[in-house]
C-alpha cells in the first residue's frame, strides 16, 4: 500500500499555526473593527478549519471522490445558510404586510 505518512514536524507546524491563530482571533476580538469583527473572527475560523481538514484529516492525500463529496457537503451547507439568510434579510424590503 502506498499510504502517505506525514512527518511529525509538519503536524507540529500545523499545530503551532492553529495555536497562533487562536491567540490572534482572541486578541483581535478586543479591537473594535465594527462590522469587520465578525469577518475577522470567521475568516480566522475558516483558516483553522482548512488547516485541520487539509493536514489532520488528510484531505491533502485523499482521493478525488472524497474531495468531491466534502465539497458537495459544503455546497449544501452554503445553500442552507445562503437561501435562509437571503429570505430573512430581505423580508422587510418590499414592505409586505405581516412581516
Amino acid at each position, binding site marked *: 500500500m502506498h499510504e502517505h505518512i506525514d512527518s*511529525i514536524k509538519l503536524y507540529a507546524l500545523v499545530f503551532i499555526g492553529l495555536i497562533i491563530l487562536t491567540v490572534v482571533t482572541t486578541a483581535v476580538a*478586543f479591537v473594535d473593527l465594527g462590522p469587520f469583527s465578525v469577518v475577522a473572527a470567521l475568516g480566522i475560523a475558516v483558516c483553522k478549519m482548512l488547516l485541520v481538514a487539509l493536514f489532520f484529516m488528510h484531505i491533502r492525500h485523499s482521493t478525488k471522490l472524497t474531495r468531491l463529496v466534502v465539497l458537495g457537503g459544503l455546497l449544501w451547507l452554503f445553500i442552507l*445558510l445562503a437561501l435562509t439568510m437571503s429570505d430573512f434579510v430581505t423580508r422587510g424590503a418590499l414592505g409586505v404586510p405581516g412581516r
Partner: protein
Amino acid sequence: MASQSHVETLALREQFDTAGQQKDASTLGMWLFLITEIMFFGGMFLAYSVYRGIYPTIFAIASTSLNVYIGAANTVVLLCSSFTMVLAVRAAQLGQRRAIIVFLVLTLALGTVFLGVKAYEWKEKFEEHHIPGQAAFHLEGVSADQQGHAQLFFSLYFAMTGLHALHMVIGAGILTVLIFQARRGKFTADYMTPVDVAGLYWHFVDIIWIFLFPLLYLIDRHLK
C-alpha cells in the same frame, strides 16, 4: 464470476478487490457521515445567526457575559487533543503499538479536560442565573421586558455547546474502545482503519468548536 483470489483479513474483506479500495471506501463512508453532521450543526449555526440578527444588542450583552479566557484556553486544549490524535493515527500508520496507546490516552485525557472546563462554565451559568427557563433568570444590563430575548441566547448557547459536548463524550467512548483494541494488538500498519476514521470524527468535532468559539464568545467582545 470473480475468482476467490484472496484470503479474507481485517484489512481486506471479501467484497473488496484491494486493501486500498477498502480503505478508500471506509474513508468515504466516514466523510458522508460527517457531512450529515455538518448539516446537523449547520441548522443550529443558522438559528443562531438569525436570532442574532433580530436581537443584536441583547445577544451582544449576553455574549460578552461569557468568560473569553476560559473559552480560549479550552480551544487550546481541544487543539492539543487534535494534535495528539493525529500523532496516534500516524503511529497506527507506522504500526507502532505502544505509541498508538500513548497518544490515544493523551487525546482522551485532553478531551476529558475540555469537558471538565465546559462543566465548570455551565456551573457558573447556574450560579449567575443564566439558565434559560429558570424562574430566577436574570441577565445584567438587560431591561425586564427583554430578558426573554436574553434567554434565547442562552438556549442556543446550551444547545450548541451541549450537543458539541455530547459529541465529545461519544468521542471519548470511541477512544476508550480503541485503547483496549490497541492493547490487544488489533491495529497494524496494514490495518488501522478504526483509528483513522475515529481521527476524522475527533478532528470534525474540533472544527465545530473552532466555529462555536468565535460565534459565541468573540464577535461582540469589542462592544464591551
